[in-house]
């Protein structure tokens, strides 16, 4: 009797194990199918041009850095990488800095017109980029900001500052106000209380907000494409080189794709805990 009971127990355990295994297998197959196009891009970027364009595809072929060499030497992609980095970094820092007081205000005060002002910020954030390209062109020409880092940064601010306000507001709200109040009771000014008590606790908030803005500015194509030509060109706009110069060039394209997207894939790993918060607020961004 007891032995029989034991046997069914073991069988059930086996079945559960098999079930887990099968479920995991299905999940992993789907997962790998989804990642396959990106992994393919990475793996194929290390092949010789002849092997890249071979049909049917050559899965096992010699490894080479030739494409990267071409992208860095002939296309001089490091120049565009530098532009992208400058624009994205300054946009990130400026947006967070300009948004911080407003985020604090929305999180800590109750004031007349608060809801409508929040609405205004959202309305600004959703303005579709492509709709404003021509007025931006005119404005950039009038201000002499065409093809400059400053112009790009200036035009990225309207979308990123409201986003930063939105994100930082949540993070500030999560820090109990009592902490600040007790510091103020101990003789700190409001600013001192914020700087000493709340700001250190906000580091993950700054970091997450910053990474999302950085990704957005790094990936931005429309404004960069129409407002820059040579000096301030950023990485996404360089795809034009591979499109228009002669026939469509596969091999350097693979390498450029990896150079452009790998930093972002790394960022994805850094912000994974806040992915949903960031994308939901960022969804509104034009």
């Amino acid at each position, binding site marked *: 009797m007891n032995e029989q009971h034991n046997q069914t127990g073991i069988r059930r355990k086996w079945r559960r194990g098999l079930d887990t295994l099968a479920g995991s297998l299905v*999940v992993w197959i789907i997962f790998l199918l989804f990642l396959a196009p990106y992994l393919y891009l990475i793996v194929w970027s290390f092949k010789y041009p002849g092997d890249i364009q071979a049909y049917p*595809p050559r899965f096992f072929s010699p490894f080479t850095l030739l494409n990267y060499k071409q992208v860095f030497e002939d296309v001089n992609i490091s120049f565009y990488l530098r532009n992208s980095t400058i624009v994205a970094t300054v946009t990130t820092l400026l947006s967070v800095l300009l948004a911080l007081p*407003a985020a604090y205000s929305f999180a800590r005060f109750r004031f007349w017109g608060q809801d409508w002002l929040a609405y205004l910020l959202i309305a600004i954030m959703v303005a*579709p980029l*492509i*709709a404003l390209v*021509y007025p931006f062109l005119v404005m950039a020409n009038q201000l002499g900001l065409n093809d400059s880092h400053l112009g790009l940064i200036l035009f990225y601010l309207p979308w990123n500052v409201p986003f930063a306000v939105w994100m930082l507001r949540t993070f500030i709200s999560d820090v109990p106000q009592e902490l600040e109040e007790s510091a103020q009771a101990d003789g700190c000014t409001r600013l001192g209380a914020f700087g000493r008590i709340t700001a250190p606790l906000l580091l993950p908030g700054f970091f997450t907000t910053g990474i999302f803005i950085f990704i957005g500015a790094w990936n931005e194509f429309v404004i960069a494409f129409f407002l820059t030509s040579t000096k301030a060109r950023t990485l996404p706009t360089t795809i034009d080189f591979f499109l228009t110069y002669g026939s469509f060039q596969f091999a350097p*394209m693979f390498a450029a794709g990896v150079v452009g997207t790998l930093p972002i894939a790394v960022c994805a790993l850094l912000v994974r805990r806040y992915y949903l*918060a960031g994308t939901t607020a960022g969804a509104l961004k034009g």
Partner: protein
Amino acid sequence: MDNPPSVDGLRGGAANALPVTRPSAGRRQSLRLWLPYLCLVPAIIASCGVLLYPTLRMFQYSFLNWSFGKSYETAKWDGLANYQWLITSQSSTLFHSLRLTLLYAGASIVCELVLGLAIAVLLNRRHVFGRQVVLTGFMIPTLLMPVMVGMMWRMYMYPNGMLSYFLGLVGIKIDWYTATWAMPAVILIEIWQFTPFFVISLFAGLRAISAEILEAAAIDGASGWYRFWHISMPYLRPIIVVTSMIRVLWILKSFDIVYTMFTGGPGSATEILGISIYRALFLSRNIGRSAALSVILAALTLLVTFAFVRFAYRSREVMESATP
């Protein structure tokens, strides 16, 4: 007119419930009064300051008859002629673009939802090897540079590309660069990029459903399907609506992928609104019509956003508990 949903409606909100200390008197009091507004100044200047002028200009241009490349002096006031042309003219692509955008949004969101839900449910089984790795990996496609995504798929969808090869293995032969298949190609890319977004948000929603309720239902004899449809689904509904609305917003303003894949072609097979604006400006060289299309796009976006904010406000408890 009723009040807008409160700010803390969308997220957090605990802080505003806390009492604000009473102001003392005199100058301190007026500072108290103005401090909230003073704090807003940098953000308002940085966003409104830059955007106000171009937006007003966009409105103004939409009433002008003005060719791209000609000086501003040649522009003539044309009243509502641009809008009238867009709505009534035979060669206007406005309704074509709207139809395409609708198809684009409908088809991709439905596929993403079904696939995303299936994968989320699979991921939510009791034991899955490397669940965290899968979830993190799924975040990569959504964050990739849209232009590069378009480029990447453009390479795969060529007749001798990777996708064509694998489809060929199962006997499917599709020429993506034809009027019939261009839009499905764009939708396919969209599904690839954003199904993971549904997976992650729906998975977070499934996680938030308390295990006790499901167990209690199981003890009462409810089958797996019954539990899914009658306990999990009602709970997931607000998350599904919010996630879909976010996708609608993204699709309305999408430009990059279609531009790099097809630039709106072949013909006007993929001419969504964003591409229409681009074409009216740089191909037809008609600033007025392009601006009128821009105004229409902006109005549509605002409309969807308004619906989104209202809905997100109503379903905030669910959204908050679902955010990990």
